[in-house]
């Protein structure tokens, strides 16, 4: 097979199809996990960052990214955890937030590193849009979620927490 010519744009585009295993409608790009796509001497390096230190899906995500880029015809694809950048929820793209809501999760507000219990506790209901909600627990079914209840539509919901 002829070696594919490095095309950063193309690789980046393909990564939009690599979904977060815990939120399968959201890509690693919308999640803000991709920090760089580089050409190396022999192939391609994709740099990425995990959302949480203890993210159990990290290995799977790395493998998914690798095989996606390989499917474009690239060889020697390396997926590297980027130690120079720290993930936070402000990195989720505006499109990512819409996808989170469509998935049924409340979204984190932008915080620029400055937020407390009030911001953590308050979430708009992803089902009916009401602000009349309460937080049941700052933990949820995955590390990135807290659990809430909406007084307006009387539904429990989870929210992607601000981190």
């Amino acid at each position, binding site marked *: 097979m002829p070696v594919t010519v490095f095309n950063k744009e193309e690789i980046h585009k393909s990564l939009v199809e690599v979904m977060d295993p815990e939120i399968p409608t959201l890509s690693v790009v919308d999640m803000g996990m991709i920090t760089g796509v580089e050409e190396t001497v022999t192939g391609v390096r994709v740099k990425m960052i995990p959302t949480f230190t*203890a993210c159990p899906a990290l290995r799977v995500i790395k493998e998914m990214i690798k095989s996606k880029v390989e499917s474009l015809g690239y060889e020697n694809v390396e997926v590297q955890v980027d130690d120079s950048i720290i993930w*936070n929820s402000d990195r989720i793209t505006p499109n990512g937030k819409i996808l989170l809501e469509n998935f049924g999760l409340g979204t984190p507000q932008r915080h620029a590193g400055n937020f407390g219990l009030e911001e953590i506790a308050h979430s708009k209901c992803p089902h009916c849009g009401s602000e009349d909600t309460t937080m049941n627990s700052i*933990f949820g079914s995955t590390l990135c979620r807290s659990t809430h209840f909406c007084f307006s539509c009387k539904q429990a919901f989870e929210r992607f927490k601000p981190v």
Partner: protein
Amino acid sequence: MADDELIYGHRMSEWTGMGPIMEEDIAYSSMAQDKIGHALANYSILEKEFQTANPDKLAFFRKENEMMNCQLVELSNHEYDFSLVRHFLFDHADFIRYEMLSTSSFAPLAQLSKKIKGELKYHVLHADTWLTRLGNATDESHVRMQSALNELWNYALGIFEPSDFEAQLIAEKIFDGEKVLQQKWIEKISPIIEKANLKIPTSSSPVYGGRKGYHTDQLQPLLTEMAEVISSEAEGTEW
């Protein structure tokens, strides 16, 4: 630090399926997952920067007297009150420790600490919420919280047992030291304990030894259980 996270993470995980209410079951399970992840991240730095054994070996194949965790984290969970007060005492110290280390001259640790402190924020909030709620709830809950605090206080002071490298760490601006950490910790937790209507024990005598490998009889059974699966497999097995 890594041993603290590892042992405490396993203790927290023992609440999985046993929590007094579902939310607490989930909370302890989530925090356990964070702690073990933090342990792994710390062991990985040791492996990468100092060529130690790999994280699995460090976590599962060391003897009791080679574990450097403070004794506070190895104590059995007892009842929920005991676990909750320990969680409060330990996680505030842990949060401040990582906050201090986020400006460490040792870059890999500084970078990791910036990440971890953001996650620990949730652990601390969780602890504060329940401590103040139960300290002020019924007579029974109040008495239980106070007696757990009395019982755990000296162990908590053992978190700050200085290592033999204390002076060097401070001189090289890697860490400001256990004394500074303890001072910041007291300043942070005192008003919260007061808000919870509880009292810090007046007499204190720190339980040291953990950092040098001396442990209670509650650690070995935990280590045995932790290594039960890995020991049953052929050497080098990976999951």
